[in-house]
């Protein structure tokens, strides 16, 4: 609060303003149904996913077009990831994992457009994504394996004396999972965008402007990498958690 309002030698820093959720059609009240800029950019994300995966593949060509190759590449990558990590029985959950991957990838990518709103930088959004995975995986673990699922926390290969200690550590690390899962994504995106905004603010000083532009180009390139890697990491961690639920042997 203090810093956003502050002026430092004529430079105005508003690195966090870009994350503000605003109603689209005027007004200041935000009800749960109000269309906001978050709504707009999440809807655009959905449209982009549909555009690539549905309209891009409408040719059903044996020799794929460009968009179809990209769609097939994503499909193949996520499917292989799910199959490699969770095994054959994990393929049942492939559509949901693909949904997560597509949503995060496209939300991240669209957030890189100037003047856009980055949905995945919102803790609320990533926390819901991570909690859905966490709750889903925990419920699935108990449904599939019953109390045997608790074996995940009981490291039977460790010395008997160490087991209770390890169980506490495992339990804590299990419950920290959704926290790190969500904050990793939101933090990465937020950090990149805030850093770009800070460099952009330096552009107001003529002497610093070229450095500022170069720095923004560099950070932007890094962000393009981060966008993909974070979507990949979120998906792969989901697969790893799913594997724990399906095969809780430690």
């Amino acid at each position: 609060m203090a810093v956003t309002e502050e002026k430092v030698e004529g430079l105005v820093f508003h690195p966090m303003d870009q994350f503000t959720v605003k109603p689209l059609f005027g007004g200041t009240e935000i009800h749960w149904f109000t269309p906001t800029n978050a709504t707009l950019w999440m809807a655009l994300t959905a449209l982009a996913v549909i555009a690539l995966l549905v309209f891009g593949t409408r040719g059903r060509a044996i020799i794929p077009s460009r968009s179809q190759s990209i769609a097939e590449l994503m499909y193949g990558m996520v499917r292989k990831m799910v199959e490699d990590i969770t095994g054959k029985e994990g393929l049942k959950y492939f559509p949901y994992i693909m949904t997560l991957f597509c949503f995060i990838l496209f939300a991240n990518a669209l957030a890189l457009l100037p003047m856009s709103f980055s949905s995945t930088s919102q803790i609320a959004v990533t926390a819901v994504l991570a909690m859905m995975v966490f709750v889903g995986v925990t419920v699935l673990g108990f449904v599939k394996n019953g109390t045997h699922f608790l074996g995940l926390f009981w490291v039977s290969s460790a010395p008997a004396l160490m087991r209770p200690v390890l169980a506490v550590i495992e339990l804590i690390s299990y419950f920290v999972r959704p926290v790190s899962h969500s904050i990793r994504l939101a933090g990465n995106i937020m950090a990149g965008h805030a850093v770009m905004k800070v460099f952009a603010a330096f552009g107001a000083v003529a002497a610093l402007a070229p450095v500022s532009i170069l720095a923004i180009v560099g950070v932007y390139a890094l962000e393009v990498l981060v966008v993909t890697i974070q979507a990949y990491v979120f998906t792969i961690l989901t697969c790893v958690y799913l594997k724990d639920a399906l095969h809780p042997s430690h």
Partner: protein
Amino acid sequence: MENLGQLGQYLGAGLACIGMAGAAMGVGNVAGNYLSGALRNPSAAASQTATLFIGMAFAEALGIFSFLVALLLLFAV
């Protein structure tokens, strides 16, 4: 007095950023060890990229936590 509070905020935010150095070393360590292992046994490298990314993500998450603490100190206290 409020200046003292601000001082604490800024100092804390700056100190929290030191945590990112640890994350940087961690990520560098993961990547470097992966590379040296991959150069010794290139045939096994491709199968371990997923592990590489998971390890990097875990190491990086802690840096992000320290960054978050800095942001919270700056903007949310």
